[in-house]
């Protein structure tokens, strides 16, 4: 009986901390429509700052706390809103997700750079004090946390309902433009809410650090609990958010207490928040289609079939020559780059063309690799089956959230990634706990490809095949519909398109592409482990894909190479390991608003050069003569692919100028 009580108190303690974090998340989301994926990273960095003040510099605890909560955290939140996330609320969800994921990764990198890994700890508040309640001892730290959550709840209630600025905050939820007309200042309201949100993240982080340790990742992923709680309140209701947080805290505590620590359920204890998040998202009511045009975003040119085949063949030939000069270690790196590039191609389909964000694309690659190793038939059939398994899993992830879009779909991939990381990949039927699996190199038509150089070339061929296929899809009817769905779901719906199955198929195909890459990677490496496909690796993947250009195949190829170089750089210059993440993260914050990325800048530059030297060149080369191969030309039917990128300078940053409007309270009339 006493154990039940003590676990209940433990649960309420965690729940209180989650509630504090989650209410900050809800506050920033409702006032600015930006879902801050990096909310946990805020808490993590600010907990480190608190540690720095109180432990390293030896300031008194109370002073450090006041400095962090009332000076550093608000200033940080204010700065982030003003400089990085301003105006994101009107951008497509995919853009605001990428920018906040950039913050997430950038902040982890920054923390690693400033506070290099070593063991650190924060003591509990008043470690010696506590209260005996019956047979249960409640520490002062727990009591303080619970009390603070009540203070936060009351404070937010008073702020929102009893103050002028709170009224302005609620008004800006509904209609920032209208608020402006009535003399309110939505930008100040937004900055204020981010300042408060940041303080709340800091408070939650500081309260939980003594329990879970001062760890970059654990503290950051803590945010999943906050997401889950906030989702229960549908990102709107603070009372429901508190209920969700408490429920989650208790559930987690009871899971630790009563689920067996051995066997199949062992992993479940670690994934209670992710499971909770998944269940809450699945139970969300049907989302209404968003109305309000998002300005066209995809502006990377689509090459003709002949051109893409030409480039593909050149790439294969070039790699055939380059690989001659590479050592085995470097061949492994080249193969890794090809793997990453293929996974990025799957993001071109999903994010670039489809407008959906997956935060766990490497997990799908892991599923493919696992299936390949388990099937143990290292040939083209085994490869295909592995890809199909990954595709099936991808479709399954999208299936429960069939009715939902954007943010919820992305968060469900995050929950899925955590589940796979901590539950499935670690299980004995998969890689096993900290285990690995052997994988045979693939054989084609009965000939095993054991020579690394040939294997790498096979991977490059697969990349080219996937890229050519993807571009063919993009040029065709399906590709057009895909882009249309991205630009205006409401118009597609009213034109009679049932988008739900499209979305599932899109997720499935994209996951299958990632799975194929994973399976090839398994054959390349020979041994694979769960650590090769960690959830966290998916985030830099997404960011680099966007920075390099997630709307084009060229961007995927460049992104693959960059991502491969990341660990190489980090091992060569260990002192700058964190900085590399910080650069990628903040690079994505800066460039994430234009998903056409660096690749498109390259295309534009190329066009300018072509415009200068084109006339002379045109007389020598028969340019674009083979278009008829791709399509029967009937005069007017020829699609003006080139014209897409001639005039695209005006759209390059158009993600920012997008208007969108959710039919809800705000646009009640008219």
């Amino acid at each position, binding site marked *: 009986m006493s154990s039940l009580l003590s676990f209940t108190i433990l649960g309420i303690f965690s729940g209180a901390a989650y509630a504090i974090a989650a209410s900050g998340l809800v506050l920033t989301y409702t006032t600015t429509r930006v879902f801050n994926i990096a909310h946990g990273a805020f808490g993590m960095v600010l907990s480190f700052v608190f540690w720095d003040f109180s432990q390293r510099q030896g300031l008194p605890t109370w002073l450090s706390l006041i400095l962090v909560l009332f000076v550093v955290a608000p200033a940080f939140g204010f700065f982030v809103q003003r400089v990085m996330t301003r105006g994101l609320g009107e951008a497509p969800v995919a853009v605001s997700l990428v920018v906040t994921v950039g913050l997430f990764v950038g902040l982890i990198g920054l923390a690693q750079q400033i506070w290099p890994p070593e063991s650190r700890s924060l003591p509990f508040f008043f470690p010696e004090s506590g209260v005996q309640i019956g047979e249960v001892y409640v520490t002062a730290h727990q009591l303080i946390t619970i009390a603070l959550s009540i203070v936060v709840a009351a404070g937010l209630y008073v702020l929102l309902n009893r103050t002028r600025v709170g009224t302005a905050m609620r008004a800006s939820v509904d209609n920032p433009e209208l608020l402006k007309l009535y003399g309110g200042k939505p930008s100040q309201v937004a900055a204020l809410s981010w300042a408060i949100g940041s303080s709340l993240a800091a408070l939650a982080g500081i309260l939980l650090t003594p329990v879970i340790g001062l760890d970059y990742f654990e503290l950051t992923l803590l945010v999943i609990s906050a997401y889950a709680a906030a989702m229960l309140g549908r990102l709107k209701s603070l009372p429901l958010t508190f209920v969700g947080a408490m429920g989650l805290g208790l559930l987690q505590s009871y899971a630790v207490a009563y689920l067996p620590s051995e066997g199949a359920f062992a992993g479940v204890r670690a994934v209670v928040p992710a499971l909770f998040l998944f269940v809450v998202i699945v139970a969300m009511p049907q989302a*209404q*289609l968003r*109305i*309000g*045009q*998002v*300005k*066209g*975003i*995809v*502006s990377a040119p689509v090459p003709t079939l002949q051109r893409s085949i030409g480039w593909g063949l050149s790439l294969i030939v070039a790699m055939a020559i380059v690989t001659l000069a590479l050592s085995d270690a470097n061949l492994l790196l080249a193969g890794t780059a090809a793997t990453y590039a293929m996974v990025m191609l799957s993001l071109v389909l999903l994010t670039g063309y489809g407008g959906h964000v997956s935060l766990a694309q490497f997990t799908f690659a892991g599923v493919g690799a696992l299936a390949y190793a388990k099937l143990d038939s290292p040939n083209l059939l085994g490869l295909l089956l592995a890809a199909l398994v990954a595709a099936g899993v991808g479709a399954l992830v999208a299936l429960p959230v069939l009715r939902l879009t954007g943010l919820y779909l992305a968060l469900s991939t995050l929950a899925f990634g955590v589940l796979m990381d901590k539950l499935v990949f670690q299980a004995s039927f998969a890689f096993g706990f900290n285990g690995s699996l052997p994988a045979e190199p693939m054989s084609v038509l009965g000939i095993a490809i054991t020579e690394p150089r040939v294997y790498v070339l096979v991977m490059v061929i697969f990349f080219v095949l996937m890229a050519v296929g993807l571009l063919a899809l993009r040029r065709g*009817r399906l590709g*057009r*519909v895909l*882009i*249309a769905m*991205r*630009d*205006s779901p*409401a*118009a*597609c*719906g*009213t*034109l*009679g*398109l*049932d*988008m739900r199955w499209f979305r599932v198929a899109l997720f499935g195909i994209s996951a299958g592409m990632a799975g194929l890459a994973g399976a090839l990677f398994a054959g390349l490496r020979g041994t694979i482990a769960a650590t090769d496909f960690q959830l966290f690796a998916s985030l830099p993947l997404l960011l680099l894909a966007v920075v390099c250009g997630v709307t084009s195949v060229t961007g995927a190829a460049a992104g693959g190479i960059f991502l491969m170089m990341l660990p190489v750089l980090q091992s060569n210059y260990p002192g700058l390991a964190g900085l590399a993440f910080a650069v990628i993260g903040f690079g994505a914050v800066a460039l994430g608003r234009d998903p056409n990325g660096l690749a498109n800048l390259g295309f534009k530059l190329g066009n300018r050069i072509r415009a200068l030297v084109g006339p002379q060149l045109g007389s020598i080369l028969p340019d674009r003569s083979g278009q008829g191969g791709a399509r*029967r030309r*009937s005069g*007017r*039917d020829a*699609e*003006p692919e080139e*014209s*897409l990128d001639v*005039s*695209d300078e*005006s*759209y390059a940053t*158009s993600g920012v100028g997008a*208007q969108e*409007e959710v*039919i*809800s*309270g705000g646009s*009640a*009339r*008219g």
Partner: protein
Amino acid sequence: MALLEVDDVVVQFGGVTAVDHASFTVEPGQITGLIGPNGAGKTTCFNVITGLQKPTKGHVRFAGKDITSLPVHRRSRRGMARTFQRLEAFGSLTVRENVKVALDIHRGAKGLLQRSATDVDELLERVGVAIYADERADSVPTGAARLLELARCLAGDPKLLLLDEPSSGLDESETDAFGELLQELTREGKAILMVEHDMDLVMGVCDDIHVLDFGKVIASGKPADIRTNPAVQKAYLGYSDVDEVDGVSARELVDETRTDLTPVGVGVGDDAPTTTIPPVQEDLR
């Protein structure tokens, strides 16, 4: 029998009632106008009819069948299509591709096997945006983008067209051509329900008009009746014909200065916040 029946529909957003027990019908082969001051609930009605907004209460019937609980795409497949007040063109695609997508969606899986490019250009020609065919939809003028949305609707050969402020962004001659196009469409048997602020156009082409104010249908009838209806004038102008000053009716005074019944002090649409306060207001006091 009416093609479309909106029956006692109520839409509430929190405490605000956007549509308040509205009932009206659209007859086949006719142009029906849905007018009213900004914020009267016109676009919300469109959203309810097309399924983008669940009504709090009430029913929508189309061709005799209750469609209130059908999802958006299935309503469309029964033969209705709409344009949007806030543009919903596929910005990353060209104007021609926009219409192609609509055709592809309309033809469904079977259509993937067929090929016909002529329809697309005919449609573009018909609504008058052929000159923009190869431009990206997010780079054409507002008026052209609205016409593009109409072309996209026509690709599905709907029985009912719902047009939300289709003429805003068109100049006078373009509006005239547009009016003729609408009448031509009705001769082909299509019904049109149109939200519109250009009163010359509404009065000129509509067979029936319903007037919404604060979510309620305050008047229904022929253009001539609506023009002289005191409740309508009051809703639009804040006063009606009945208040005569020195033997001159407010209506006549207004006619001297402006031809369209732009709601007092409120912008038209969302892109042109022109504040037009009729000068007569001073004289009346």
